[in-house]
């Protein structure tokens, strides 16, 4: 094992001395992903109940999911809500981040904190609050209400990610563009946005996922025709433990990790920019 005695970095620390670090990191990684990954084999079971590891392999619960009108409706609701949330939260969050960045308002920090409170308040409070407000506004169990609530939750993420992107952008460029004949909006779209696009794409994907994965608020304010996938899964879990939710979970994991991979591919500027 000569490898153990080689330096691990520019310092003189060897791989051998770092062994504990590698083991610890490995354990933490397994700890983090095991609960997620255990669902995958469970979803391919032939049994009536959730079991691990499955005795007989089958895709019957996938067939059940795709064949169930109720599950399909919930899936459409969730995807629609996630898409609309993304389309609403991204422009709003980007505009807010840009406005705060460009204005250099002294109250800017305060406004920033106010906008990210939904992230700091316990989710259950947001859910209860939204419920009572929606009853008054009569938009309980509607797509509009769901998208609005999810937008509130996604906005802080969009704001933070975009603000971080803007930090490394030189606003002089926008002034240059304006002096060259671009209106403020045109300068933003042709000079600023292309350069913070990686942050904006990442922010959009995060907004999508925020809505798609969300269950607590959805439990309170989504229902009827507009029940989300996560809400129905939660109910299914309570009523009958049925491997369908394992197969749905697997599909959601695939979608989520797919988006994360996309975020990694497009969400990172290559070099220099």
């Amino acid at each position: 094992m000569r490898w153990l005695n080689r330096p691990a970095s520019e310092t003189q620390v060897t791989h051998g001395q770092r062994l504990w670090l590698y083991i610890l990191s490995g354990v933490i990684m397994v700890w983090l992903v095991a609960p997620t990954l255990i669902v995958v084999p469970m979803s391919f079971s032939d049994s009536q109940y959730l079991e691990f590891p499955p005795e007989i392999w089958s895709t019957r619960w996938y067939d059940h999911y795709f064949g169930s009108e109720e599950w399909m409706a919930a899936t459409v609701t969730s995807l629609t809500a996630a898409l609309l949330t993304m389309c609403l939260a991204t422009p709003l969050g980007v505009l807010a981040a840009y406005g705060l960045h460009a204005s250099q308002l002294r109250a800017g920090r305060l406004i920033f904190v106010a906008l990210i409170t939904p992230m700091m308040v316990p989710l259950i409070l947001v859910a209860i609050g939204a419920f009572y407000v929606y009853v008054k506004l009569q938009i309980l169990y509607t797509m509009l209400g769901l998208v609005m609530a999810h937008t509130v939750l996604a906005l802080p993420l969009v704001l933070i990610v975009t603000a971080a992107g803007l930090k490394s952008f030189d606003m002089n460029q926008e002034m240059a563009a304006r002096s060259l004949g671009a209106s403020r909006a045109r300068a933003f779209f042709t000079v600023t946005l292309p350069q913070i696009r990686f942050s904006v794409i990442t922010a959009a994907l995060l907004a999508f996922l925020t809505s798609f994965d969300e269950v607590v608020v959805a439990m309170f304010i989504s229902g009827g025709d507009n029940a989300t996938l996560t809400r129905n899964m939660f109910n299914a879990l309570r009523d009958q433990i049925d491997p369908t939710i394992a197969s749905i979970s697997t599909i959601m994991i695939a979608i989520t990790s797919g988006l994360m991979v996309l975020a990694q591919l497009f969400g990172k500027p290559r070099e220099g920019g």
Partner: protein
Amino acid sequence: MTERPASALPITIRAMTKTYGRVHALDQVDLDIRSGEFLTLLGPSGSGKTTLLMVLAGFTRPDSGSLKFGDTEVIRMPPHRRDLGMVFQNYALFPHMTVAGNIAYPLRLRGIGRAEREARVVRALETVQLGGYGGRRIDQLSGGQRQRVALARAIVFEPRILLMDEPLSALDKKLRDRMQIELRHLHEQLGMTTVYVTHDQREALTMSDRIAVIDHGRLMQLGAPREIYDRPANRFVADFIGESAFLPVRRKGAEILCAGRPLATESPAPEGEKLLAILRPERLQLLDGSVPPEINAFPATVSELVYQGDSFLMAARLEDGTELTLRDVVRRDTFAELPGPGSAVTLGLHARDTVLIPDDGAGAAP
């Protein structure tokens, strides 16, 4: 070569004032910039040069004042309608576009067709001596090349006014010297009204048709480089541009007296009883023996002699304690013969070079 713009525009600035809290960034500035001239705003850091340029460009809204390009009042016109080229201190090039993309940007905004756009980009690149660099990425360029691209981008749409804010300050000295001459030639070739900002007096003296010296948001003097240098209007200008020692003198009747002796001058003295004579190191000379009537003589004692290669500096103290410096070229073998520290010498200043300014009581500047 880019052809001359249809016409350059004069700029009229009246009573321009801008305050930031208690700081007067601009204090009642009146300035007429002539059509087609190269005017430099010169002043120390924080004097309001950038603020004035930003007011011209439309990025800073003044508290009050009027601004005209030609006959048009533009104070409320947004920056993108002012149709002026601007070069920023850090260039502000667009890194997500190529060199050609950067230069074509203002043309695209003006709806100029592809063929003409490309032709004009090529011409602009040639004008700034970057022919063939159109396809490069911005991060592949050196500082001097970026500077040229920024310039090409600012002139390609043939604006009638060009603004530059310390465009050479990020370059090393050699390149800066060369770019000064190039910018000057470019201005002669293009002929647009150019407002140039710098805190470097030598740069201002080298490049400008006229210089506007600014301090604390106020216009201290406006004039051609030689006028500013040879006939400074006040202590600030004399002190900021070139090196100067100041000698208190008094008016007595028709005469100007310096330590009791009359002082010969060629230009009329300003108003007031208490005045200052400006003594520039390179205008002083070492006298030996007889003193011609057109030379003012100052007896002094040498305190230090410094060899500087092409020139030498002699520090000397007058009888009243005023410290003077004399600079002259070192010619072969003459340096060794110069009087050393402690020697008594007589310094001479030609009446032509004897400039008087009002003694406004401002203490010795740092």
